[in-house]
C-alpha cells in the first residue's frame, strides 16, 4: 500500500489540472483510500499518469540488426553499469533490451508499443519484449504487404481475408494491425515501389495501395480491435508526399485509423531543393476528421539510425547518404531497411523536417488525437522526448532554436508564426492519456480509481526539459521502481495481446499454402501463448 501525499495531480481524463490531492495505491491499482503503508511526501511536486508510447521500435529482428550495425554508436553511448537493482546494458540510439526498459522507466514512461512485427520473427520480438523490464508493452503485426492477404484481396474474397488477418494476429500474439507502405514493400521484392494509391501493385491486377488500406481499416473495425489500423502511409520521406497522405486520409471515408509518424508524410515541394512543410494542410484535415489519430514522429538534430519495414525508401536513403545499408526481411511477409543517419541543423531538408514535427504537434488542435513520438529511433532516440516537450511548452525557446536554422529554411516552414505553448495538462494528454485512449487501454493514462498504478512524480521545474528528464519517483503497478532518476528495483511488465474471432476452418485453407510456400512448418509458425509472459489476453467478442 502506498499513499502519494499532497502532490499537484494532473489527470486530464478527470479534468484535474494541478489539483492538490492524495493518490492511494493498493494491489497495483489506484484506490479510494488506504490506511497504513508507505507515504511519499509529494508536496511541491507534480503527479502524472505514466507515459504511453504508441509507436516505437525496441524489440525484434529489425532493431536488433540496427544494434549490430552501429558499434560506433555504442562507443559513444551511455554505459549502464550493473547495480543490485538492474543488469548492465548500453544506451545510445538503439539501446539494448534491458537498458530500453530502464531508460523508458527512468524517464517516466511505463507502457510502450513495438510498432513493426513480421509473424516469422515474432518469437524474437516477444523474447526481447520479455527482456524489456518494468514497462508494459505490446506489438503491431505487419500486414500491409502479406502475400496471402494480398492474393485474397485480388480474388475479392474479403471475408476470408478477414479470417486470415485475425488468425495471423493471434499467431503473432500481437495487439494491433500495422500497414507499412501498403503494396510498396510487396513491390520492393522485385526492386520496385508503388507510385500512386490507385495504380495496381506490381504482380496484381486489382490490388492497389488504396484497396489494401481500406480493406485493412475495415478488418480492424470488423474485428473490433481496441486500436485501429496503424498506418505508415505510402511515399514516406519524399518531397510532395503530403498529397498522398491527404488522399489516404480521404479514402478511409470515416473509418478509424492511426497515422504513424505523420511528420515523415507532410512534405511539399517537387524535389529536395524545393522541399517544404505542408504540415498546416495535413493538420487542417486531421482537425476536421475525428476518425483519425496520429503520432508526430518528430525529428531531433543529431545522430541516429533509421529502421523501417519500408525497404524501398531505405534503399533511396542509402543512395542519398552513402552510409551503411542493411536490407532484410525480404523473405518475410514484409521488408526492412536500416540506415544510420544524422539530422543536421544546417541542412535545409533536416531543418524543415525538424519544424514539421513541431508544427503538427502545435497545429493539430485536439491533443487527444496527436501523440508525442520520435518514431524511435528514426527521428531521434526516445530518451530525447524531454527535448520535444520543452520545445512545445516554451515558445521563446523555440524562437531561439529557429535562429540556428539555415535562413532559407524559414520561408519553407510555418513554425516561426506559431505562438501556441502546450500546458502541462496537454503534455499529459499527448504523452499518456491520449495514446492510452487510442490504444483502447482504459486502465492506463489516468489516475482515477481502478486505473493501473503507473504514476510519475516530478519535482516542479520551470524548465520542462529538465523536469521530464529526471523524475523524482516512478511507480509501476504500485511498486516504486525509480527514485531520483535511478532504477531502484526491477519489476516485470506484462504484454497486451488480443484474441480476435476467426473461423477455425481458416487453418484448412492456410495449411496447404504453408506447405507450398513457407520455409517453416505450419505447426511451428505461430507464437505459442506460453512464450508470452506475463500476458494479458483480451478476447474480442462477435
Amino acid at each position: 500500500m502506498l499513499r502519494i501525499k499532497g502532490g499537484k495531480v494532473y489527470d486530464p481524463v478527470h479534468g484535474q489540472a494541478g489539483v492538490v490531492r492524495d493518490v492511494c495505491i493498493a494491489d497495483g491499482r489506484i484506490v479510494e483510500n488506504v490506511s497504513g503503508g508507505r507515504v511519499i511526501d509529494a508536496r511541491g511536486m507534480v503527479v502524472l499518469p505514466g507515459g504511453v508510447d504508441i509507436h516505437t521500435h525496441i524489440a525484434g529482428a529489425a532493431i536488433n540488426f540496427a544494434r549490430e550495425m552501429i558499434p560506433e554508436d555504442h562507443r559513444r553511448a551511455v554505459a549502464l553499469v550493473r547495480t543490485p537493482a538492474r543488469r548492465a546494458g548500453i544506451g545510445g540510439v538503439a539501446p539494448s533490451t534491458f537498458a530500453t526498459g530502464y531508460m523508458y522507466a527512468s524517464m517516466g514512461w511505463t507502457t510502450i508499443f513495438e510498432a513493426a512485427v513480421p509473424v516469422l520473427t515474432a518469437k524474437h520480438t516477444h523474447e526481447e519484449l520479455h527482456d524489456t523490464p518494468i514497462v508494459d508493452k505490446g506489438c503491431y503485426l505487419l500486414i500491409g504487404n502479406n502475400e496471402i492477404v494480398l492474393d485474397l484481396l485480388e480474388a475479392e474474397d474479403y471475408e476470408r481475408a478477414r479470417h486470415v488477418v485475425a488468425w495471423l494476429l493471434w499467431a503473432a500474439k500481437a495487439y494491433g494491425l500495422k500497414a507499412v507502405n501498403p503494396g510498396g514493400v510487396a513491390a520492393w521484392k522485385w526492386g520496385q515501389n508503388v507510385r500512386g494509391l490507385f495504380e495496381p501493385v506490381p504482380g496484381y491486377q486489382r490490388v492497389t495501395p488504396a484497396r489494401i488500406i481500406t480493406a485493412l481499416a475495415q478488418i480492424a473495425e470488423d474485428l473490433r480491435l481496441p486500436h485501429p489500423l496503424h498506418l505508415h502511409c505510402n511515399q514516406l520521406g519524399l518531397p510532395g508526399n503530403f498529397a498522398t497522405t491527404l488522399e489516404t486520409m480521404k479514402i478511409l471515408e470515416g473509418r478509424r485509423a492511426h497515422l504513424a509518424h505523420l511528420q515523415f508524410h507532410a512534405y511539399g515541394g517537387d524535389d529536395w531543393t524545393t522541399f517544404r512543410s505542408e504540415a498546416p494542410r495535413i493538420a487542417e484535415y486531421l482537425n476536421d476528421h475525428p476518425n483519425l489519430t496520429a503520432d508526430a514522429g518528430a525529428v531531433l538534430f543529431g545522430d541516429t539510425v533509421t529502421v523501417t519495414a519500408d525497404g524501398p525508401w531505405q534503399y533511396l536513403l542509402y543512395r542519398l547518404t552513402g552510409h551503411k545499408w542493411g536490407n532484410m526481411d525480404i523473405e518475410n511477409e514484409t521488408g526492412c531497411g536500416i540506415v544510420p543517419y544524422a539530422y543536421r541543423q544546417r541542412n535545409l531538408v533536416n531543418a524543415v523536417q525538424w519544424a514539421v514535427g513541431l508544427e503538427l504537434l502545435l497545429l493539430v488542435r485536439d491533443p487527444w488525437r496527436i501523440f508525442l513520438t520520435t518514431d524511435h529511433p528514426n527521428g531521434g532516440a526516445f530518451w530525447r522526448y524531454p527535448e520535444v516537450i520543452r520545445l512545445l511548452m516554451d515558445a521563446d525557446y523555440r524562437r531561439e532554436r529557429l535562429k540556428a536554422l539555415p535562413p532559407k529554411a524559414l520561408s519553407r516552414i510555418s513554425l516561426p508564426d506559431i505562438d501556441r505553448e502546450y500546458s502541462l495538462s496537454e503534455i499529459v494528454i499527448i504523452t499518456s492519456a491520449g495514446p492510452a485512449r487510442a490504444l483502447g487501454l482504459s486502465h492506463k493514462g489516468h489516475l482515477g480509481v481502478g486505473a493501473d498504478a503507473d504514476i510519475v512524480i516530478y519535482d516542479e521545474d520551470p524548465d520542462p526539459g529538465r523536469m521530464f528528464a529526471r523524475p523524482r519517483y516512478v511507480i509501476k503497478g504500485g511498486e516504486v521502481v525509480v527514485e531520483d532518476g535511478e532504477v531502484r528495483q526491477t519489476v516485470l511488465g506484462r504484454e497486451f495481446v488480443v484474441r480476435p474471432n476467426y473461423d477455425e476452418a481458416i487453418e484448412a485453407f492456410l495449411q496447404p499454402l504453408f506447405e507450398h510456400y513457407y520455409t517453416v512448418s505450419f505447426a511451428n509458425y505461430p507464437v505459442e501463448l506460453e512464450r508470452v509472459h506475463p500476458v494479458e489476453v483480451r478476447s474480442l467478442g462477435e
Partner: protein
Amino acid sequence: MGNREAMAGVITLRLREKPHVPLEAEVICPDVLVGKPREEIQALPVFLGKRTRRLGDFFDVEVDGDGEEIHLEGDLRRVRWVGRGMTRGRIVIRGDVGMHLGAFMQGGTIEVFGNAADWVGAEMTGGRIYVHGNAGGQVGAAYRGSPFGMQGGTILIEGSAGPEVGMRMRRGLIAVGGAVGDFAGLHMRGGTIFLFGPVGIRAGAWMVRGTIVAFRPITLLPTFLYACAYRPVFLRLYFRYLQDHGFPVPPEALNGTYQRYTGDTAVPGRGEVLQWIGDL
C-alpha cells in the same frame, strides 16, 4: 625525428613486468600526467582485464621537473591505449608497445623505438606518430562501424605494417617503409598513403578519394582505370617533408615516373593510385 622541442623535464614510467592480461592505460598521456606529483600519478586508474588497478601497481614512476615528455620503458606489448586522445607533449617508448597507440590523438608526438601493435593512430585528428620498428594492422584506420579513420596528422612506420592500413582515412599522411598487408587504403575517403615496400592484395578497394603512392609493383583491382604516366611535382614536397622528419626515402623515388590509376570505379570513387615505374 626532427622538430624536437626543448623539454624542461621528463616523467619516466618503467613497467616492472609484462602483465598476464592486457593492461588498458589511457592515463599514460601528457594531458593527464603532466603537472601531477609522483604519488598522484601512481594512484591513477588502469584496467587489468576487467579489474581497476593503480598505475603504480605496474610501473615505477619517476618525475623529473615539469616537462611535457613521458618516457616509457619495459615490455609494453600488453599495454594498450598509450597516448589516447593526447593533445600536446611527447611520448617516447623504448620497447614494443600494445594496441591502440595514439588512438584519437589530436596533437603532440609519439616516438617508438621498437614495434607497435594494431590500431596505431586510429581515428587520430592531429599530431605525429613515428614507429622505428613494425606496426600491426589498421594503422590510422576507422574503428569498426565508424565512417572515418584518421582525419589529420602524420603516421610514419619505418618497418612493416599489417592489413587495412589507412582504412577509411579522410585526411593526413601515412608512410610505411616496409611491407603492408592486404586492403591498404580500404574505403579511403582522402589523405595520402606512401607504401615503400611490397603491398598486399586489393589495395585501394572501395577508395572514394585520396592518394596511394606505391614503389613496388602492385596488383590493382580491375576496377581501377589507367590514366597516364607522369612526374608529379607535388610528390617532392612530400618526400622533403618525410626526410625532414628523418624518414628514409629511397633516392630513386625522388626522380621517377609514375603511372596514375583512378578508382575504385566500383564505388564509384575518384581516388588515385600512383605506381612508381622507375626512370623512363
